[in-house]
């Protein structure tokens, strides 16, 4: 009996081992490129980076790409001490982060990869909400907010407790949202369910009729059966995020570019260089696939130029 079990285990392992070897033989021959690419940062940008890594892995299976989701801020902390090669970011790098990186002689190449329409969502069964003005959003999310029930926003809405979900303080989405809606980054009420993992937020809002949350557009698109998008009125009537409204900026103030920040030192390694090259080439297609908006042609050319010349500094986030 013991023999049988041991044989069984050995066979299972052997089978897995064989398969392991078999895989690399199937893929293309141009795969002598090896090494690691360490990526961390925004969970908003993660779906794109994951898709790129997956497709890249088909071409260059020997290169190991790891992608973390510590949040834009969390990722920058690692990036600025050289622990990662690329940082996914859903907001531009902050001055104090630049300072930290400089202290460690780390530079960055700022590369936008897509546009996101930061989406405010409610539960599918929310029948009363038609849209929110920016002012109403501010009223809900400002620090010390006294909004606890839906009818605190509009008196004809239900007298039910409003359950709020949002990214945590390491999240670029959080930074961007609070900056756009409350006027100051990280300035926000504190009694809401926080998670750096947007999936948790989706689950929360999808499971609660009286919930309201915000995260990147891709996460809404992936879950339209369970979520309802909130059109935002920034003075020109309520606009829902869509490919057009994000692209032409009418979905405001929550349209934003999302970035990757690349360490020029890391680019000296061929695997990182190839990866970023691939990323920039594929990002239009893949970001649209995961639910973001691809950048216009003119901008893409400029970005690729910046990349080729390894131009460091904040080119795209001054406006």
């Amino acid at each position, binding site marked *: 009996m013991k023999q049988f079990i041991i044989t069984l285990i050995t066979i299972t392992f052997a089978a897995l081992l064989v398969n392991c070897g078999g895989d690399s033989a199937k893929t293309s021959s141009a795969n002598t490129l090896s090494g690691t690419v360490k990526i961390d940062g925004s969970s908003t940008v993660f779906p794109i980076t994951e898709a790129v890594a997956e497709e890249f892995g088909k071409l260059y299976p020997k290169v190991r790409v790891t992608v973390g989701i510590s949040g834009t801020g969390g990722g920058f902390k690692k990036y600025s001490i050289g622990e990662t090669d690329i940082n996914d970011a859903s907001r531009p790098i902050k001055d104090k982060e630049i300072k930290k990186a400089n202290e460690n002689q780390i530079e960055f190449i700022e590369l936008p990869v897509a546009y996101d329409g930061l989406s405010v969502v409610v539960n599918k069964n929310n029948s009363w909400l038609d849209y929110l003005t920016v002012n109403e959003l501010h009223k809900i999310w400002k620090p010390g907010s006294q909004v606890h029930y839906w009818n605190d926003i509009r008196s004809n809405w239900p007298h039910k407790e409003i359950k709020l979900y949002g990214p*945590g303080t390491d999240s670029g989405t959080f930074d961007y949202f609070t900056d756009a809606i409350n006027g100051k980054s990280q300035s926000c009420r504190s009694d809401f369910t926080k998670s750096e993992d947007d999936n948790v937020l989706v689950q929360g809002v999808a499971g609660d009729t009286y919930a309201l949350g915000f995260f990147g557009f891709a996460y809404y698109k992936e879950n339209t059966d369970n979520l309802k998008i909130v059109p935002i009125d920034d003075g020109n009537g309520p606009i829902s995020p869509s490919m057009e409204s994000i692209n032409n900026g009418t979905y405001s103030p929550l349209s934003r570019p999302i970035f990757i920040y690349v360490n020029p030192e890391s680019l000296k390694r061929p695997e990182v260089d190839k990866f970023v090259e691939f990323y920039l080439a594929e990002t239009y297609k893949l970001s649209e696939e995961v639910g973001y908006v691809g950048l216009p042609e003119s901008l893409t050319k400029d970005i690729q130029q910046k990349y080729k010349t390894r131009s460091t500094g904040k080119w795209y986030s001054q406006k």
Partner: protein
Amino acid sequence: MRLLFRQINLKEKGIEIFLSLSAFVSILTTMGIIMILFTESFQFFKNVSPVEFFFGTQWEPLLVPKSFGILPLLSGTLIIVAGSALISIPFGVLTAIYLSQFASEKTRNIIKPVLEILAGIPTVVYGFFALSFITPILRSILPFTEVFNAASASIVVGIMILPMVASLCDDALRSVPRSLKEGGFALGSTDFEVIKGVLVPSAFSGIMASFILALSRAFGETMAVTIAAGATPKLTINPLESIQTMTSYIVQVSLGDTPQGGIEYQTIFAVGIVLFGVTLLMNFFANWVMNRYREVYE
């Protein structure tokens, strides 16, 4: 001859020292844990008053305005402990009584492995079970239950620690000498009366110790509650709401990966030291109960 003995002795001594070093690894581990937790918490308490930490009712370490009262996290953990106790203690004791008093050898050979399996299932699996099975059922019975709630997590943690209670109580009950039991029967007592009046009191120390150990386990439980109970620190006794335990707070912060320095990073250690301290105390207490109330049968 003398030289040979000397060489052998040297070798023996050498082996002994090497082996003892291995034993000291365990001491090093404990020292490491204590040192790390203490030094970082010390940094933390330089900036946050212990009074605010231990008695504050708001836990908001990341967002301005920051507050560092641990009571919400503590209450979250305690709800889970209480909930899991409600399930594991009654069922565990009853199972132990059944196994030790009523069950046939055949039944024991079925139930004991079942309990071992339940105990051996990883906590992620329990978390999944809570989220995908228990929560939907709870929500259909009580529609105002949130998606992430303490009750589901408590239920699965209860199932998780039930085998521990059952097994330890079973051992305790079985160690009561037959003579005591038979004495009870000789006086005309029923099964129930013997159990209630003789066995349980005699095995009291072991039974109590098993409760404390199981609850200590529930206190330190991480994955099941992280998956199913939520990430909202709040001071509440409503188990149908989303809460946050001390353990899942630590996980949450390390997912966002706050690096060295900074008060956010230090909160990991402040919460960690409370966690470590409480579980340590509970384990010591269980031991003390075992020894103090142990009935000595000659």
